[in-house]
C-alpha cells in the first residue's frame, strides 16, 4: 500500500482556484452586458427564416448518462489490472463488452442515432 501524495488532491483544487481567479481578473479587461432586445437574442447567422430551436431530446441525455455510468463501471474494473491473475482483466473485458452491448442497444433503439 503506497501513501497518497497530498498534491493528488490539493493540485487539482489549486488549479481550479487559480483558474477561477484568473478568469475573474481577465473579466476586468472587457465590458459585460445582458438584458432584453435584439442584441441579446440567439444568433441567426444572417438568415431571416431560421429553424426553431431544436426540441429537448431527453432520450439522448438518458443515453449519455447511461453511457457514462457504464463507462465508469468499466474504468473501475480496469483498476484491477494490477492483479497477479488474469481473472480481473477478463472481468474488464466483460465490462467493456457490456458497455458496447448496452450502448449499441440504446443506439439502435432510442439513442443518439435518432436525430
Amino acid at each position, binding site marked *: 500500500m503506497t501513501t497518497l501524495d497530498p498534491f493528488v488532491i490539493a493540485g487539482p483544487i489549486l488549479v481550479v482556484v487559480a*483558474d477561477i481567479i484568473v478568469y475573474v481578473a481577465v473579466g476586468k479587461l472587457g465590458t459585460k452586458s445582458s438584458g432584453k432586445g435584439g442584441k441579446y437574442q*440567439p444568433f441567426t447567422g444572417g438568415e431571416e427564416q431560421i429553424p426553431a430551436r431544436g426540441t429537448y431530446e431527453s432520450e439522448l441525455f438518458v443515453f*449519455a448518462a447511461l453511457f457514462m455510468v457504464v463507462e465508469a463501471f468499466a474504468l473501475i474494473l480496469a483498476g484491477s489490472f*494490477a492483479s497477479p491473475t488474469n481473472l480481473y482483466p477478463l472481468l474488464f473485458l466483460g465490462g467493456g463488452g457490456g458497455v458496447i452491448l448496452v450502448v449499441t442497444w440504446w443506439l439502435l433503439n432510442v439513442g443518439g442515432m435518432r436525430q
Partner: protein
Amino acid sequence: MIAVEVAEILLFPGLTFFVWIAFLFDWLDRKTSARMQERVGPLVAGPWGILQPVADFFKLTSKEEIVPEFADRFIFFLGPPLFFAAPAIGIMFIPVVGTAAIVSNQYDLLFVLFIIAFSALMAAFLGYAAAGRWSTIAMGRLIAQYTGYEIPLIIALITPAILAHSLSITGIVAAQRGIWYIVLAPLSFIVFIISALAELEKPPFDIPSAKTEIVGGWMTEFSGRPLAYIKLTKNLSYAFLSALAVSLFLGGTLGPVLFADPTLQAGLDFIYFAVKLLAVGFIIFVVRTALARVRIDQAVRLFWMVVTPLSLVQLAIIMVLWWK
C-alpha cells in the same frame, strides 16, 4: 518544499508552461494549414506571427461579453473556467522533466480518462446553457459523436496500461525503457489519434462546430472572455492529448542517456519530450488540414464499425502475444 510543488503545478512544467504550449500549437496549426493551402498564415504579431494566438486571446478578452437573454447565467459564467480546468488538471499527471510527473498516483490514468469525459460533457452543458438554435443542434451532435469515440479512446489508452501492468502514467513511461509501445501497439496509437481528432473537434470530426453548417456550433452564443477561454481550452486540450500520446506510446521523456549529471540529463529528457510532442501535434495538424468533414452519422458509424473493432483487435493481440 510545498512552495516548489505549487510552483511546479502553476508555472513549470505545469499550467503556465502548457498554456504557452497551447498558444504555440495554435500558431503551428494555423501556419501548417496555411502552408498546405498555399497561404502565409499568421505573419504580423511577433516574429513569423508567433504571437498571433496570444494577441487573439487578449483581443477577445477585451471585447464585450454578451449574455443572451435566455441563457443559463450560472453555467454561462462558471462553465468556461471549469471547461478549462479539465485539461489543466490532466497535464499535472504527464511527466515533462525527468520520468516523474508533478503529481502521480497508481490510478492516475483512470482519472485522466474521467477528465477527458468531463471535458466533452462540459462542452455539451455549455452548448445547452447558451440557449441558441445552432448551439442546441451542435450539442446533440457533440453527444452523439462523444458516444462514438469514447469507447475506442478508452480501449486505446488502456492498451499501454496492460502492457506496462500499471495504471499510472509515470509507471507506463518508466515501463517503456526497453521499447516504445507504439511498436507493440501501433493500432492503438492510430485509434488514439483518430479519437483525439474527434475529442478536439478537428476535421474530419469538426461536426459539432461546423462553421459552414451551424455557424459557430456550440460556441455560437459565446463572446468576449468566455469565448477566449473556450478557444484557449481547446488548444490546451490539443497539447494535453498530444502529451498523453507521447507518454503512453512514444516513451514520454525517455531517450538516449548522454549525461552523467542528473540535471543535464533532465534537461535533455525535456528536449526529447518537446520534440515528440511537436511530432504528434504535427500529425494532427496535417491530418486535420488534409481531410474534409464527414456527416455525424458517418462519424458515428465509423467509430462503431471500424475504429472500435480496430481497438479491440489490438487489445486482443496484446492479450495473446504480450500478456505476462
